[in-house]
């Protein structure tokens, strides 16, 4: 009985998640007639699939080309993730191993301060960031967007990794120091390799948030730097047909889906059992 409940829940949930996606996937291959004359679902049986939608977004038909936005998105996401991971893991290690503070404000308050950056709705920050980037002449540049995204990704990375480092026994760092590593070497040579699963999870989160960011890209970039979410939304606003829109949706999530499969295999191999019994 429990099993039935469990599996029916999994089935219902998967349906809920997968049906819109597969519908979008199917729609992206439809000719106009298959969309306009009632709902159709099964290619070849109900309609003859075409590549028109895909040609529209890849620049082949001359309608739109999502490759430049794809590259922009990838660049911006890559660098903001890299920066947040590099500095975030150092900050998290420090917060996990050493005590900082001023008067009654100690490590937990600092950690809360980090995560509190995410509590504020981004809309509140739009105007300040706009003015800031304008002053720095970084509006509509990749660097400007990378900096702003990093400020949003870093808290997530720090928050996740502090918890992760706390689970690694402190004795391992001590051992490394007793065996001739200074604190930084102990961190790089023994803690970082052990933290791979944690770094992967934090990195994955950062990539997803960075990749999907629409708001800041919309406000802080215009024509020079257009990211994928902005480009897809821009298509939506015009007279773009459904099959092209569906193709653009699938196109923009494909890189992440691919990455998820790679990371999933990597994660399940990780683990740090055996440090302490």
């Amino acid at each position: 009985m429990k099993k039935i409940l469990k599996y029916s829940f999994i089935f219902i949930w998967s349906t809920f998640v997968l049906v819109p996606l597969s519908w979008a996937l199917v729609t992206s291959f439809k000719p106009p007639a298959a969309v306009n004359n009632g709902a159709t679902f099964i290619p070849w049986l109900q309609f003859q699939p075409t590549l028109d939608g895909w040609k529209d977004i890849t620049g082949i038909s001359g309608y739109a080309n999502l490759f430049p936005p794809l590259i922009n998105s990838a660049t911006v996401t890559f660098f903001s993730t890299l920066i947040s991971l590099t500095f975030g893991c150092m900050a998290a290690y420090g917060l996990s191993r050493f005590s900082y503070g001023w008067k009654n404000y100690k490590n937990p308050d600092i950690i809360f301060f980090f995560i509190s950056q995410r509590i504020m709705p981004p809309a509140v920050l739009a105007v300040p960031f706009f003015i800031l980037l304008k002053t720095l002449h970084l509006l509509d540049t990749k660097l400007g967007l990378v900096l702003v995204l990093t400020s949003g990704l870093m808290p997530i990375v720090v928050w996740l990794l502090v918890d992760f480092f706390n689970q690694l026994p402190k004795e391992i760092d001590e051992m490394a120091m007793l065996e001739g590593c200074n604190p930084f070497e102990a961190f790089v040579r023994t803690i970082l390799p052990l933290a791979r699963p944690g770094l992967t999870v934090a990195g994955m989160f950062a990539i997803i948030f960075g990749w999907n960011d629409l708001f800041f890209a919309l406000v802080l970039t215009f024509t020079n730097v257009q990211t994928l979410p902005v480009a897809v939304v821009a298509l939506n606003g015009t007279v773009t047909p459904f099959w092209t829109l569906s193709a653009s949706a699938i196109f923009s999530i494909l890189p992440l889906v691919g990455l998820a499969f790679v990371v999933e295999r990597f994660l399940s191999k990780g683990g740090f059992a055996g440090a302490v019994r």
Partner: protein
Amino acid sequence: MKGSTVNLDLRSVSVDTETEVILKDISFKFEPGKIYVLIGRTTSGKTSLMRTIAGLIEPTDGEIHLGEERLDEVPIWDRGIAMVYQQFINYPHRTVLNNVEFPLLRAGVSKADAKAQALAMLEKVGLSEFKDRKPSQLSGGQQQRVAIARALVRNTRVILLDEPLMNLDYKLREQLREEFRTLFKGTADGVTIYATTEPSEALFLGDELLVMHEGRVIQHGKPDFVFENPSSIDVAQIVNDPPMTILDAEIKDGKVNIGNLITFPTPAHLKSEKDGKYKIGTRASEVILGGSESNSEEGTVSLSEVSGSETLLYVKLNVGEVVLQLEGIHDYQIGQAVTISLAPNRIFLFNMDGTLCAAPGN
């Protein structure tokens, strides 16, 4: 980094936090080539003392010298001290061989030499066949052997072992204890400090015993001497497992009188003591089951536990609780009536303030 012949010299080392005293005014000179055993209860400061020597705790007062060097001013990573933890700490992402090589490589030994030395050490601790495994694929005892190999391979001037057998089962503990003696004697030329709560380990391994209690060294000396002549009730409790039974007594008119219930003529080794009130101590293994004379009393069993090949019996008497150690495994019910008697010639006599007055000797 050859283990050299320098003394480790603690000069009134103290550690305290805002709220409590961890170590209080410890001065001691450790000589190379000897095994020093720190014995004490769980919070007596053994671990803190080791961590202070290693540099993981900064002393609030005092100096630590290693030969000519002022050790407490050297950062941890330059001290060249090896430590084995109670938990089995190894680098989980490295193989057994790489674990043992790591400290050598850090110390600047060439790759080929490090490998050769690590392999030789693994041979010594009996782990050669596991050199390519990860620590997590080994049993607890093997993991601790890796940790010990890692500590011994550098042949440091000081090696610290913090209750290394604590988390192992009884059988393995006895086996490793045997191995340790030959291993340390043959390998470590520096100062070896070994912390334990087990008197049997201390007696077996130690060249010198330091009894720690509430952050101080309260007695030190050869293990059997300390065992036979505990300077106070605290020491007697710490170096005996199960702890020594302590009862109030009075010496008067050539008789020892315990609560008017147990009396016996003053034994030879207590003859010279003045009449008055004392505390007497008796080891669990020296209490006798049975007896019908005036030095015996009937009581009830309040707890009976089997430990290894021995049975411990806690007997409630009208004068207090007596712990009794019996060879072999016996079955006693709680509440069962038993008669026990004391062995007058094995009695330790303590003054009322807890200091030793007379010991039965060997």
